[in-house]
C-alpha cells in the first residue's frame, strides 16, 4: 500500500509539473522569454495550484461524506453547499456588487456555502447529534430551494447577466491569482488534516454508529467534526472556482479501487487524485481549442465518467 501511495504522489506531482509546461503555448522552463515567464508564474502556476486545492478539497470531502452519510452517492454538493454558494455568488454578480473588489464573488460564495452548511447542520441535528438521513434530506431539500431561487433570479435577469452567472456556476479557474490562494489553502489544508486525523473514526462511522461507539468513539462528536471540516473545505473550493462536478462523487470510488477502503489511505489518495484530475482537466480545457477555454467541470466529467463506469463493472468499487 505504501508503494501505491508513493506512486499516486509521484503521478500527482508529475501532472502538476506538466500542467505548468503545457498550454496554448508550450513553455520550456529552462529557456523562457518575458511573456513565457509571466504566463508561467502569474497565470498558470496560480491556476494549477487552485486546481490542485479545489480537487483536493472535493476528493477528500467526497470520501468523508460517503462515510459519514453512509451513502455511496454522497458528494460535497449533495448537502446543498454548492447551490447556496451559487445563489449567493449569482446575487453578487447580477446585483453588480463590487465593494470587496475582485474578492467580492469568492467571499459571497464562501459565505453562502458556510450559511447553507450551517442550515443543513441545524436541520440534520436531533437529540444531540447529526443524523445521516436527516442531513441528506435537508441538503437535498435546501438544494432544490436554492436552485429554484437561483433559476428565479436568473430568469428575471438579462440574458447577458444570466450567461455570466452560468459560467461562474460551471466552474472557472482562469481567474486564479496568488492573492486568493492563502485563504483557500488554509481551509483546504485544515480540512484535509482534520479529516485524515479522524480517519479511524471515519472508518468506524462507515460501519455504523453502534460500531463507532463500541470501538471507543463518540459517533455524534466525530460526525460533527468531520461535517464541519468538510463544509469548510467545500466552501473554500466553491469560492476558489465555482462548481466542478464529478470529482467529489467519483474520485473516492476510483481511489478505493487503487488503494483500498481504509480512510487513512483513502482520504489522502482521494485528495491527491482529485487534485491531479482537476489539474489535468484544466490543462485540457485551456489547451484543446485555443484561444478559447472550456469549463474544466465539463472535462472532468467527460474523461472521468467512462473510466468510472469501466471500474464499476469490476469488483471492489462497492461491496455489493
Amino acid at each position, binding site marked *: 500500500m505504501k508503494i501505491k501511495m508513493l506512486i499516486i504522489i509521484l503521478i500527482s506531482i508529475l501532472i502538476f509539473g506538466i500542467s505548468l509546461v503545457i498550454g496554448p503555448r508550450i513553455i520550456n522552463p529552462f529557456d523562457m522569454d518575458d511573456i513565457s515567464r509571466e504566463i508561467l508564474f502569474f497565470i498558470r502556476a496560480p491556476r494549477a495550484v487552485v486546481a490542485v486545492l479545489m480537487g483536493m478539497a472535493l476528493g477528500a470531502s467526497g470520501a468523508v461524506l460517503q462515510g459519514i452519510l453512509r451513502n455511496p452517492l454522497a458528494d460535497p454538493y449533495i448537502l446543498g453547499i454548492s447551490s447556496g454558494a451559487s445563489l449567493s455568488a449569482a446575487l453578487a454578480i447580477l446585483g453588480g456588487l463590487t465593494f470587496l473588489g475582485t474578492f467580492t464573488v469568492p467571499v459571497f460564495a464562501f459565505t453562502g456555502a458556510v450559511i447553507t452548511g450551517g442550515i443543513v447542520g441545524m436541520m440534520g441535528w436531533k437529540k444531540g447529534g447529526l443524523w445521516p438521513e436527516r442531513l441528506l434530506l435537508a441538503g437535498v431539500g435546501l438544494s432544490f430551494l436554492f436552485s429554484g431561487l437561483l433559476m428565479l433570479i436568473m430568469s428575471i435577469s438579462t440574458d447577458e447577466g444570466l450567461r455570466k452567472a452560468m459560467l461562474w456556476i460551471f466552474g472557472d479557474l482562469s481567474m486564479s491569482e496568488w492573492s486568493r490562494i492563502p485563504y483557500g489553502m488554509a481551509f483546504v489544508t485544515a480540512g484535509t488534516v482534520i479529516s485524515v486525523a479522524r480517519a479511524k473514526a471515519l472508518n*468506524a462511522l462507515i460501519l455504523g454508529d453502534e460500531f463507532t461507539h*463500541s470501538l471507543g468513539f463518540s459517533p455524534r462528536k466525530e460526525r460533527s467534526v468531520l461535517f464541519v471540516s468538510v463544509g469548510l473545505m467545500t466552501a473554500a473550493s466553491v469560492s476558489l472556482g465555482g462548481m466542478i462536478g464529478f470529482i467529489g462523487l467519483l474520485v473516492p470510488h476510483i481511489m478505493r479501487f487503487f488503494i483500498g477502503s481504509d480512510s487513512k489511505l483513502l482520504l489522502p489518495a482521494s485528495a491527491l487524485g482529485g487534485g491531479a484530475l482537476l489539474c489535468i482537466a484544466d490543462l485540457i480545457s485551456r489547451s484543446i481549442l485555443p484561444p478559447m477555454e472550456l469549463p474544466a467541470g465539463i472535462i472532468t466529467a467527460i474523461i472521468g465518467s467512462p473510466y468510472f463506469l469501466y471500474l464499476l463493472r469490476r*469488483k471492489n468499487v462497492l461491496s455489493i
Partner: protein
Amino acid sequence: MSSASKPMILELNDVCFSYSKVESLIYNLSFSIGEGEFIGLLGANGSGKSTILKLASGILKPLSGDLRLWGKPLHSYMNRDRAKLISYLPQTLDITVPFTIKELVSMGLYPYDIPPAMSVYDALEMVGLRDKEGAHLADLSGGERRRTFIAMTLLQGAGLLLLDEPLANLDLKYQVELIRLLRKLRKDRNISVVMALHDINIALQFEKVVLIKDGKILGIGPPEYILSEELIRNAFDVDVRIIRQQGEKAYISYENNF
C-alpha cells in the same frame, strides 16, 4: 446468590429507558453479568432485548437507574477506556464500503495507542479466517461475517461481548459453529458473553437466561429452572410443551400450536 463469589463485570440496577415521553421501553431493569458468564437474553421481537444491550454498551443512556462497569459508573469511563472492556456487535452488518476482512478486523485496535500483544493474524486464526484476510464481506458466508466481527472484538480485547441476535439469518450449521467458537473463547480467554436470542431451544443450551417481555424481566436463572411452560406462554404468546427425557437436556415443542 451462587454467583456472588465471582466478581461482577457489569451491573444494571433499576434501569429505566424510553425514547419518547409517552411510553417506557425498559422498566426497573436489574441484573448483573459476572466474569466468564454466558447469558442468553431471551424474548419475543420488540420485547426490548436490543435496547437492553444498547444500554449495557453505553450507546443509550438510561433515564434513571445505575450502570456499573467493574464497580465504576459506566458513563464515567472515557469512550476509549470503555471500549477496551466492552464490545458490542449490532444485529445488522450492512456495510457498503468494500473493506477487506483484514481492514475490518484491525479496527479492533482503534482504542489502543500501543497495540496489544495479539496481532490481526492471531485474531483471524482464532476465528478460522486466516486465509480470508484479503476478501470482502460480500464474498463471505453469513457465519464468516459474524466471525469477522468476533475477531475484531478479540483484537479489541474486551472481556464482555454484547451480541445482538448473532444467530439470526444463519443456517443451523453456522449457528452451532458460532456458539462453539464463543464457548471456546470463553474457555481460552475468560470472555463473558451476553447474547440476544429468540430461539428458546438455543436458550436452553445457556447456563443463564434472562427472559424479557415488554421491557421487564420475567425471570433470571438457569433455563431448566426458570423456563416453565407458563412463563414461555406469557413471554412469547404461544403454547409450548417442555419435553424432558432421561439423561438429555430438555427441549421445547410447539406442535400443539399448529
